[in-house]
């Protein structure tokens, strides 16, 4: 992977973003066909689990150090809960709000929470105090989300 240039890497990252956008719509449709949105969440996580096993082998990941992790803080284990909430929220909400509006609101929430986490150095991350450009950037994002909502309230 180290052989790819920055431009290719940026392009691949943009494609990953496009994948995330498409996934919400696809999963919403899958839930509709299967009869309940939670079935789409289930399929997403079950197949994702099966997909990661060969990747672990491909990457030659060493056996996990469970003893160290079990002594760690409780919140390191919350990724699954948050993941389920996020995938379900995306597939239920995106068809109602539109994908762009959903993702905009999601990004705004994500960056507001990141600013707080960084500023106080929460969940094991180094402290990164608020800077004018970080605050201004977040304001721009929230403004962008609000602007996309204009045509919905004529």
């Amino acid at each position, binding site marked *: 992977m180290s052989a790819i240039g920055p431009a290719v*890497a940026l392009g*691949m*990252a*943009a494609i990953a*973003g*496009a994948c*995330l*956008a*498409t996934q919400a*719509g*696809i*999963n919403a*449709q*899958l839930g509709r066909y*299967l009869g*309940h949105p*939670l079935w789409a969440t289930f*399929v*997403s*996580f079950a*197949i994702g689990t099966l997909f*990661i096993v060969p*990747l*672990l082998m491909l990457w030659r*990941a060493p056996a996990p*150090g469970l003893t160290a992790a079990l002594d760690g803080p409780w919140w*390191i284990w*919350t*990724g*699954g809960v*948050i*993941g389920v*909430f*996020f995938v379900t*929220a*995306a597939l*239920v909400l995106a*068809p*109602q709000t*539109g*994908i762009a509006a959903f*993702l*905009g*609101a*999601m*990004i*705004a*929430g994500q960056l*507001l*929470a990141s600013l707080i986490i960084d500023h106080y150095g929460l969940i*094991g991350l180094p402290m990164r105090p608020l800077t004018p450009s970080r605050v201004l*950037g*977040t304001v*721009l*994002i*929230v*403004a*962008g*989300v609000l*602007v996309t909502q204009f045509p919905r309230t004529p």
Partner: protein
Amino acid sequence: MTSMPPILAMLLAALAGAGLAVQSGSNAVLGRMLGHPMWASFWQFAAGTVLIMAVMVALRVPYPAFAATAAGAPWWVWIGFITGSYFVVAALSLAPVIGVGGFIAALVAGQMIASLILDHYGLVGLMPRPLTLARAAGAVLIIAGVLLIQIPRT
């Protein structure tokens, strides 16, 4: 669920985004403790699968129409896991090449552009939401905000 007010949907989307911010931090710590970032992804998917099963049993979600879905649904309803897995792999392998900031900026740009296209044409079963000047401007503001936040990191 169709009667949810747009404001509530947007707030839930923002909350899901805040969850993602917490998750990326907690997964990073978990991956470090377990010895490899992929183990954190594995835990997230495996724990998520178990959790969603428990929720579905508790809610008595009816058994899905797998056979009918396989026969009647378009093929792309099943590929949500590919887009999701591509994202996991891309995040792990590209961030070291272009930095987390560059990855996030490219990701958000890809997300917003793809979502405007998906909404405009009503792809993957979505209701068409034509591209307006306000929606395009909102997406530009969001991308600009993300770029601005990354500046002090470099």
